[in-house]
């Protein structure tokens, strides 16, 4: 036994040492030589997870339940394995948004909602108060054990002699000293973190010391302990887990709860996220913190077994084995060390938890309430920073005292572990909204609110309420019989589900309700603009942050343009000054302005400066660290004339999906454009193909023409040559025969030269339009030609009538060519006129165009021959074609070159006229052509413009 004064002195000495250490760390931080900038310090500070519960309670639980106590430490090990993604993302989000607590985190994610911030705070307080009571109970209980005083904490004990009360007050003071020294923009407490890390070392050393003592000094090593325990049949149940759903459920529930608790308990969020100075520290903590947990648990079972073997059953509370064993063996100094270790665990937890809760209470409960109730009058107070600090100090004191109250009234009846697990289950209610908020953009404010409310109601009904009822003896009946006596509402067997232990049962139902509401309500509600913007900036945080910026003060406001407000710089300065204190506000603004000059001109006239949106953001962020994001937004709104934010702007700025969509839409347009171009190309290609085909057709026609011409040339040549050879080889040819042959040769030669002339004309016509156009009298040309062909007619005995006196047929053209046309037509008519009574008529008439076009001269050449078959009416105008339907008895070829009509038609067309034939088989044929008449102009000159496109005004192409 130790005297109380020694224990108290040692405790105070230890706490003083801690305080000195923390002050030193704070001072060094101010000098820029931070001690918390080490990853090992970060990992050790995470070990605030191990509280008095671990220190005393683990042994107690191991002594009754076996290995299941390990789940509380295996869960965090698993969570930390996800640290590289999960924890780092939390750190990054919190730094970017300057979040200072888990309430801030949730509130900010769902649209900076004051309601959510308050809700989370209330839940956190409700979960933490019993947990603090647990620490007080542990401290006062172990103090009692160490000093041999009476059982502490009972209701009848006067306040003045209750060690729990003193412990509470001392812890509260300590927490106030470290947690609320000043208002900080980052809400970091380096001194506190350094003290916590140190305490973690102390508690580990103390626990290992007692573990080694029990295992190796009192017993002969681990093997000895286990073999002795194996000899005790009443201890066998500790070595295996009972089968059955209760055991499975308990194991899984504890694993899940502890996995969540290591990040979501307010104090864990504080050390792991808020106090993190460099996110790279997380990487080392991934294995260092689990290693710490493993070490501190190494001797739990040996100590538990040692205690169970050492003390007669039931005489000593297993929770106190770590103390009672060294005491019983006569090592009070070791026991004192263990007590200090336990004190470390308890103080660490209480300090960090109350500081975290005080931040939440002031930022998310009190400030919003004050701002709402008093509105402008409150916010216009000159310096609110002192107010904020006072609120926080009050909150710390209140939370600790609430813990004490709980401890006095309730906690005495409960084991340490079950109190802690209830707190874990409360923290687990944050898991869906936090994790969902980090990875699911669709989670809405309404979903989060209903999830938290629903989850907490079930949690309260199934876990703390029955415990309170049983402990206080009030309304105990509802635990065993259900509310209103309904068995379905029994808090430990909702709907009759009684396969699980109370903690597994409560965890299952509360999380089921929580998650279902979160997902279900989120899917059926919509997000506001700000809410959506926040959701995107949480889920896609990597797009917003500079990964390697150490503690991104500068990068924190970049790229956040959701808030498009502007404000007067002076208003902002005054507002910041009220909450941060004038000096710090000035510092912050000066630093900002130095880095981001607003306007070159305006620097000397700062008073009237308008702060741009970035600066407003910056101010909001600064303010958020002092009074929480939701309140900061409300405060900023009082001085900022906010321009309405359009939804599409927000989306354009923040929503990557939107960008991706826009990009893919552009792509689609591009590909449609390509498609269209391809189609155009296709069309062009088709056109080209058509043109190409036409060209080839022309080519083919020319080839054909050339081969036809050659063929036509060869025929007379062959006969000339044949007759010439006959005459050469037979000199004694009969003179009569010789004369006949020579006649043939001459005729063929004439034909040949005619043919060549025709081909040349034909080719020439292909190249030129009207080679030599002059005004000429058509009637004169007809008379001239008739004179030339007269012999031909008289030889064949064909009568030629010319009726060309009626019109003054002045046309324009090449006289030679026109004459050739007339010659061809007349010769043709002479050839085809009737053999016996051949008759050919030539007539000229003026043709008036009814549609008002130019008047035409029309010339007809009619014969009374066999006529032309309708199918030949067009063919005969093609080169080298002749009518195929001939009258019988006229078998021999008509003797033309086959080019005459083709040449004639070309000539006429070149003069702007048409040439066609009308004929009925057996009734002769009439070849007609038209030529545009020359019109006498008013000034006397004669204009003669051939109109190429003019349609023939005559009877047309004589189509049948």
């Amino acid at each position, binding site marked *: 036994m130790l005297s109380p004064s020694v224990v108290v002195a040692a405790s105070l000495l230890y706490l003083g040492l801690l305080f000195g250490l923390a002050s030193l760390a704070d001072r060094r931080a101010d000098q820029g030589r931070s001690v918390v900038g080490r990853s090992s310090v970060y990992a050790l500070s995470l070990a605030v997870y191990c509280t008095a519960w671990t220190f005393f309670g683990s042994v107690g639980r191991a002594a009754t339940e076996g290995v299941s106590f390990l789940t509380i430490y295996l869960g965090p090990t698993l969570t930390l394995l996800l640290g590289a993604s999960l924890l780092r993302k939390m750190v990054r989000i919190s730094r970017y948004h300057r979040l200072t607590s888990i309430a801030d985190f949730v509130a900010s994610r769902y649209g900076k909602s004051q309601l959510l911030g308050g809700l989370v705070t209330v839940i956190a307080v409700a979960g933490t108060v019993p947990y603090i009571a647990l620490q007080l109970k542990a401290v006062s209980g172990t103090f009692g054990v160490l000093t041999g005083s009476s059982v502490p904490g009972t209701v009848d004990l006067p306040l003045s002699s209750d060690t729990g009360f003193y412990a509470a007050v001392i812890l509260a003071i300590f927490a106030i000293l470290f947690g609320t020294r000043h208002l900080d923009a980052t809400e970091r407490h380096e001194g506190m973190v350094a003290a916590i890390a140190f305490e973690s070392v102390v508690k580990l050393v103390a626990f290992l010391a007692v573990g080694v003592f029990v295992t190796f000094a009192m017993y002969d090593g681990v093997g000895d302990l286990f073999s002795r325990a194996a000899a005790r049949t009443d201890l066998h149940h500790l070595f295996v887990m009972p089968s059955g759903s209760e055991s499975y459920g308990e194991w899984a529930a504890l694993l899940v709860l502890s996995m969540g608790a290591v990040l979501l308990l307010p104090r864990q969020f504080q050390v792991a996220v808020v106090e993190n100075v460099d996110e790279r520290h997380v990487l080392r903590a991934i294995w260092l913190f*689990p290693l710490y947990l*493993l070490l501190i648990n190494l001797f739990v079972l040996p100590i538990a077994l040692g205690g169970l073997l050492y003390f007669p059953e039931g005489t000593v509370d297993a929770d106190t084995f770590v103390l009672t064993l060294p005491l019983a063996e006569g090592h009070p100094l070791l026991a004192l060390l263990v007590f200090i270790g336990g004190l470390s665990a308890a103080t660490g937890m209480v300090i960090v938890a109350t500081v975290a809760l005080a931040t939440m209470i002031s930022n998310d409960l009190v400030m919003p309430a004050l701002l709402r109730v008093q509105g402008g009058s409150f916010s216009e107070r000159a310096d609110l920073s002192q107010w904020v600090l006072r609120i926080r100090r009050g909150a710390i004191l209140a939370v600790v005292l609430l813990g004490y109250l709980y401890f006095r009234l309730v906690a005495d009846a409960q084991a340490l572990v079950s109190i802690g697990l209830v707190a874990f289950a409360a923290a687990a209610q944050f898991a869906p909204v936090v994790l969902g908020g980090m990875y699911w953009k669709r989670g809405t404010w309404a979903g989060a609110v209903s999830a938290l409310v629903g989850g907490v109601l079930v949690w309260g009904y199934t876990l703390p309420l029955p415990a309170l009822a049983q402990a206080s003896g009030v309304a105990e009946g509802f635990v065993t019989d259900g509310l209103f006596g309904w068995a379905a509402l029994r808090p430990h067997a909702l709907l009759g589900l009684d396969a699980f232990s109370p903690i597994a049962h409560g965890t299952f139902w509360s999380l089921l309700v929580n998650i279902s509401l979160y997902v279900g309500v989120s899917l059926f509600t919509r997000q506001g603009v700000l809410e959506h913007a926040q959701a995107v900036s949480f889920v896609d945080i990597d797009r917003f*942050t500079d990964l390697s*910026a150490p503690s991104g003060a500068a990068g924190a406001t970049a790229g956040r343009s959701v808030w498009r407000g502007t404000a007067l710089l002076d208003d902002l300065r005054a507002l910041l000054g009220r909450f941060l204190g004038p000096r710090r506000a000035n510092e912050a603004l000066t630093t900002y302005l130095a880095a981001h000059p607003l306007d070159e001109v305006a620097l000397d006239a700062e008073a009237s400066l308008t702060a741009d949106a970035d600066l407003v953001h910056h101010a909001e962020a600064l303010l958020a660290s002092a009074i929480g994001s939701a309140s900061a937004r409300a405060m900023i709104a009082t001085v900022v004339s906010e321009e309405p934010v359009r939804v599409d702007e927000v989306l354009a700025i923040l929503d990557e999906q939107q960008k991706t969509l826009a990009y893919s839409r552009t792509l689609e347009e591009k590909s449609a454009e390509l498609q269209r171009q391809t189609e155009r190309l296709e069309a062009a290609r088709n056109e080209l193909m058509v043109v190409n085909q036409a060209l080839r057709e022309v080519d083919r026609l020319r080839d054909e023409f050339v081969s036809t011409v050659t063929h036509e040339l060869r025929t007379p040549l062959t006969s000339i040559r044949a007759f010439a050879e006959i005459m050469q080889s037979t000199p004694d040819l009969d003179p009569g025969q010789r004369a006949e042959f020579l006649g043939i040769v001459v005729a063929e030669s004439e034909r040949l030269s005619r043919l060549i002339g025709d081909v040349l004309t034909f080719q020439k016509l292909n190249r030129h339009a009207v080679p030599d156009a002059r005004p000429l009298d058509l009637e004169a040309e007809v008379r001239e030609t008739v004179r030339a062909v007269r012999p031909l007619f008289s030889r064949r005995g064909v009568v030629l009538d010319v009726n060309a006196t009626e019109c003054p047929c002045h046309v324009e053209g090449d006289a030679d060519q026109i004459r050739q046309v007339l010659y061809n037509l007349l010769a043709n008519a002479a050839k085809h006129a009737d053999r016996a009574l051949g008759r050919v008529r030539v007539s000229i008439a003026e043709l008036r165009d009814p549609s008002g076009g130019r008047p035409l001269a029309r010339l007809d050449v009619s014969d009374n021959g066999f006529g032309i078959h309708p199918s030949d009416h067009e063919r005969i105008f093609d080169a080298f074609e002749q009518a195929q339907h001939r009258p019988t008895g006229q078998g021999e070829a008509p003797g033309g070159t086959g080019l005459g009509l083709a040449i004639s038609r070309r000539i006429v067309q070149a003069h702007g006229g048409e040439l066609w034939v009308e004929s009925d088989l057996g009734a002769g044929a009439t070849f007609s052509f038209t030529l545009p008449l020359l019109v006498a102009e008013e000034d006397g000159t004669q204009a003669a413009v051939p109109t190429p496109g003019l349609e023939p005004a005559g009877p047309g192409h004589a189509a049948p």
Partner: protein
Amino acid sequence: MRRQRLIALFVLGALLLNYPLLLLANRAESMFGVPVLFVYLFVVWAALIGLAAWTVERRRDRDSGRRTPVRGGSPAQHSGARR
């Protein structure tokens, strides 16, 4: 890559430290004088920690040269450096 290895490690741990695989070790026998269940839990635990340490520290050493802070760099750069 490192992140994925750690996630895989998490899945492995979650499987090994849970029902039903836990039942394989849940037997009333001893190994080195210690109940099998205890040995199993601590060995798996230590192995997880060891593998995590190996994954994290090995990569970090190799990375450290490249990890010079680039304030204001583009997010794309970072995601590149991170993986």
